């Protein structure tokens, strides 16, 4: 049994390296520049742990006995449950101490005055650097090695390490930011505890006022957001149902085209719809002007406010509702309807008494998804909000605007989070109890009954109208980029594209357009984030589907819960968590990457879970009984079979990283500006031409990425019957709500 000792030796080496070679503290100029290597000797900030040890920094000392204790364990104890237990205890102790000292001692000394009176004043310390992070990982490894030696999960150290690593990552990048946000609400500018901010904001009539219902005046922003979400959810569900019915139960032509529509929300940066609506119905929109010319009536600024946001959200989220509902409508087994018809029920009666009730859970699901999407939407309200915003934009302006009130932002974010999480939990509870999906593995033949005529006619009319409207809106985006000055001078021009994307070949290639900078940053960061997202997502999916470990249900639930965290909340929590020691990342590319990975990971998880559930579990077991280790099983058997799911996860996390705005806008910096944030800046300056040109380019790029991917996967149909499963896996991942 030397395997246990060998890996412990490696762990010891790694821990020693982290303590004796890597800089313990955060390096402002960036670790990966490796500039620090040249000044290593002269600059104490770059020194590793062993060089930082001084009586003044006594809180660093405990790490020395920790590493020594691990070394002693290695050489004095035989591998076994006993040593495993001690190893776990040491790892946990190391992590806890790192956490405590990191949180307690900030840049300028103690973070809480209480500690100062207890332990006396101390000098401050910078944030964790490579050494500290490395040691934290070593502690995680100690815990998993310890668990393995105790025989947990049949002693599979790979699986145990993967689980501890994931738990550590989720704790750091999901839980810790949220907690920081909550505590942020209770701190003043210098970090001292105060309830003033919360007290002031929690009862703020601007948030909670109900004056629009009783009395006069406007309602609070919380109620407005809630009301908007209800309207959007109702509207998108009804429209989505209409589309789903048309797609499955009528003889309308162009049905295939409807399915294409479902990719739109994924490839469109979320504010683009709002932008296009402004071009049509804004003060100088062409519809407005047309009406003005013909009737002399000026509709005014009606678009800016809840009505406009509502229309934009309807356009944005109807495809999502359609995607959910088309599965539901197809899932109603035709034989149920045929049974009803053989019992002398007419089409209308069958539809009302059998089909609709069977679809009810699906409708509720679509409603709740619409509700959450609307609550979390940031792009459309930002562009169309005008004076009366919604929660997500209020949060943004509380941080970046003139008010600069982090406590207010935290309170608002908490309110928003409560709304979305309640909706999510309601969805889970509701669906848990009534799930009568009648879809079974058996193809039970039969065809869906066509819609009764009196329903079909209005539904087809509605769907056709709305589709035309959507097409029109998107056409407007493409067209708007070629017009000189919208509303004033409608002559065609390429000027906006030239300004954004010009290149010059003077001496060598020079990217002279204003958009290139953010464009390349976006591509770079999205390209780095996508494989990480896919890897983390699929690893998680594998653990959830294939490994039985205690707490798996909770783990899965927590991950799915992160679906319901609005991007704005993530953004605000990230700047609150990662702006100051112990972990400092704001203004770097790293924070953007982590944000994308943990925001988009649920997409990868869902796709991976769906694809992996289709793989026979005995394939893994066969591989194990043939003597392959679990990493070998994962890489040689599971991953090759999941290739389409991997590609899908890659593409979708890439696309979503490129088109998202809500979290990103908090995290961009001058050095790392993202395309969407840059476009929003253009819109705020009224620079619509370039903004629209840039947006169209993004949409076209995303369409080609997705199209290329579909071609790739479509071509991978191997021999007999395999293609179907592959395409099903690829399709499944599209069904994830954005």
């Amino acid at each position, binding site marked *: 049994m030397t395997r246990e000792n060998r890996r412990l030796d490696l762990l010891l080496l790694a821990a020693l390296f982290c303590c004796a070679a890597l800089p313990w503290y955060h390096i402002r100029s960036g670790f990966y520049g490796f500039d620090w290597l040249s000044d290593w000797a002269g600059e104490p900030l770059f020194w590793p742990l062993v060089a930082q040890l001084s009586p003044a920094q006594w809180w660093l000392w405990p790490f020395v006995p920790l590493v020594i204790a691990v070394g002693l364990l290695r050489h004095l104890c035989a591998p076994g449950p006993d040593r495993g237990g001690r190893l776990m205890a040491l790892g946990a102790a190391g992590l806890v101490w790192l956490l405590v000292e990191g949180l307690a001692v900030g840049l300028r000394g103690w973070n809480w005055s209480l500690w100062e009176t207890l332990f006396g004043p101390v000098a401050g310390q910078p944030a964790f650097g490579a050494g500290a992070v490395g040691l934290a990982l070593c502690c995680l490894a100690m815990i998993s090695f310890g668990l393995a030696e105790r025989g947990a999960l049949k002693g599979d150290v790979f699986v145990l390490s993967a689980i501890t690593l994931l738990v550590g990552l989720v704790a750091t990048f999901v839980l810790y930011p949220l907690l920081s946000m909550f505590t942020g609400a209770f701190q003043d500018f210098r970090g001292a505890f105060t309830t003033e901010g919360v007290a002031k904001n929690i009862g703020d009539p601007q948030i909670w006022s109900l004056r629009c219902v009783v009395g006069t005046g406007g309602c609070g922003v919380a109620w407005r957001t809630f009301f908007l979400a209800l309207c959007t959810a109702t509207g998108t569900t009804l429209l989505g149902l209409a589309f789903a019915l048309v797609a499955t139960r009528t003889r309308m032509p162009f049905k295939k085209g409807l399915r294409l529509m479902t990719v739109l929300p994924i490839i469109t940066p979320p504010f683009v719809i709002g932008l296009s609506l402004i071009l049509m119905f804004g003060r100088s929109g062409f519809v407005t002007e047309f009406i003005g010319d013909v009737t002399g009536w000026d509709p005014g600024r009606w678009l800016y406010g809840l009505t406009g946001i509502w229309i934009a959200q309807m356009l944005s989220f109807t495809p999502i509702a359609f995607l959910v509902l088309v599965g539901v409508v197809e899932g109603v087994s035709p034989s149920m309807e045929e049974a009803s018809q053989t019992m002398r029920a007419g089409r209308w009666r069958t539809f009302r008494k059998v089909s609709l009730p069977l679809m009810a859970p699906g409708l509720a699901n679509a409603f709740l998804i619409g509700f959450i999407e609307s609550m979390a939407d940031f792009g459309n309200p930002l562009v169309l909000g005008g004076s009366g915003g919604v929660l997500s934009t209020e949060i943004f302006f509380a941080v970046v605007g003139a008010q600069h009130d982090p406590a207010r932002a935290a309170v608002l974010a908490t309110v928003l989070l409560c709304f979305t999480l309640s909706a999510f939990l309601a969805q889970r509870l509701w669906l848990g109890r009534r799930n009568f999906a009648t879809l079974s593995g058996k193809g039970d033949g039969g065809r869906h009954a066509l819609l009764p005529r009196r329903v079909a006619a209005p539904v087809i009319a509605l769907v056709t109208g709305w589709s035309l409207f959507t097409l029109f809106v998107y056409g407007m985006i493409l067209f708007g980029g070629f017009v000189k000055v919208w509303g004033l001078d409608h002559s065609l021009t390429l000027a906006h594209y030239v300004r954004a994307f010009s290149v010059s070949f003077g001496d060598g290639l020079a990217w002279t357009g204003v958009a290139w900078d953010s464009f390349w940053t976006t591509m770079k960061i999205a390209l780095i984030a996508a494989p990480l997202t896919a890897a983390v997502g699929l690893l998680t999916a594998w653990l959830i589907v294939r490994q039985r470990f205690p707490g798996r249900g909770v783990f899965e639930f927590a991950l799915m819960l992160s679906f319901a965290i609005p991007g704005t909340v993530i953004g605000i929590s990230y700047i609150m968590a990662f702006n100051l020691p112990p972990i400092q990342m704001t203004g770097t590319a790293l924070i953007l990457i982590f944000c994308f990975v943990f925001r988009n990971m649920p997409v990868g998880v869902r796709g991976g879970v769906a694809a992996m559930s289709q793989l026979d579990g005995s394939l893994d*077991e066969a*591989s194990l009984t043939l003597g392959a280790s679990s990493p*070998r099983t994962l890489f040689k058997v599971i991953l090759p079979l999941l290739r389409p799911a991997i590609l899908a996860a890659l593409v979708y996390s890439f696309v979503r990283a490129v088109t998202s705005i809500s979290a990103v806008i908090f995290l961009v910096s001058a050095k790392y500006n993202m395309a969407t944030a840059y476009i929003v800046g253009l819109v705020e300056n009224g620079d619509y031409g370039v903004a629209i040109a840039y947006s169209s380019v993004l949409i076209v790029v995303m369409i080609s990425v997705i199209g290329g991917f579909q071609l790739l996967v479509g071509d991978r149909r191997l*021999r007999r019957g395999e293609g179907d499963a592959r395409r099903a896996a690829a399709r499944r991942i599209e069904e994830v709500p954005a």
Partner: protein
Amino acid sequence: MSFSQRGAVAFRGIRKAFGAFVAIPDLNLTIAPGELVTLLGPSGCGKTTTLRMLAGLEAPTEGQILIGGEDVTRLPANRRDVSMVFQSYALFPHMSVAQNVAYGLEAGGMKSRPARAAAREGLDLVGLSGMADRLPSELSGGQQQRVAVARALVLEPQVLLLDEPLSNLDARLRRRVRTEIRELQQRLGFTAVYVTHDQEEALAVSDRIVVMLEGQVAQAGPPRELYEAPASEFIADFIGEANVIDCEVTQVSDGTATVAIGAVQQTVPAREAVPGPAKLAVRANAIRLRPGRGELPGRVLSAAYLGDHMEYEVETDLGRFFAIVAESDTPMPQGSDIAVEFRSRGLALIT
């Protein structure tokens, strides 16, 4: 590990619980090297669980498992010297047949060239030499099954585990493949644990059958012993569909017992019988039906024509009998009165 122990298996005080549900309360079982042991029992009795514990895919809640005299209870599946043929075959669909067979060898550290060569030998062994470069989806069910066997065998494991290996094949093929597996096992002399719920299959291939019921061993022994001397009503019924009836042992002498079945007197092997009331297993083919009246009168409840034989259900004072009669040219019509008689071979006292 002494060489003579290679291939020996022992379960010692094994208990397996899934949460609150106890699948296997207390299992003790030893398997000799080179033996083919069948785990037989109704669905849900714990056969697969037992096999998976031996493979290392499931950890026992309590107890010890030994393979080749070595305690492997805490060893993960990939470090145990056993390999398994799965019910669904579990061939890796993205690898060719040869790659499938070489997979375990390469996982064990063999270079790919010798692994390929060994894989080809393995395929020769099961008669699939020409199929090395096909994908599993391009093989028939029986061929896939043989690839699964070859894949497990090339590792030369101490023990080969087979979980209902034939259940995905049609009846005709099942007979052929089970003979092939048995021949291979006797030729190469490895230990095999074979799970099935089909008593005929068990009788045909085993050195020893272990009949399980609700996680317990109901009876273990060579096929003939189980058939001829069932230890319980359950065994008698499960192996060879016997009618179990009450009888009275009137006399025991010289290893034969005289039993009274109603008014019928019959001699059967005594086993450990003592005079007094007892239970008798009557095989369906040990019943003769004669038109007219006799010592045990009965009436035909139903009759089914099956080509070369007839199946009857007969009502008598002693209860219902299920009878298989080889003669099918002059069937007895439903509702007719008949006399029931017994052959002495095919009767067994349950002890």
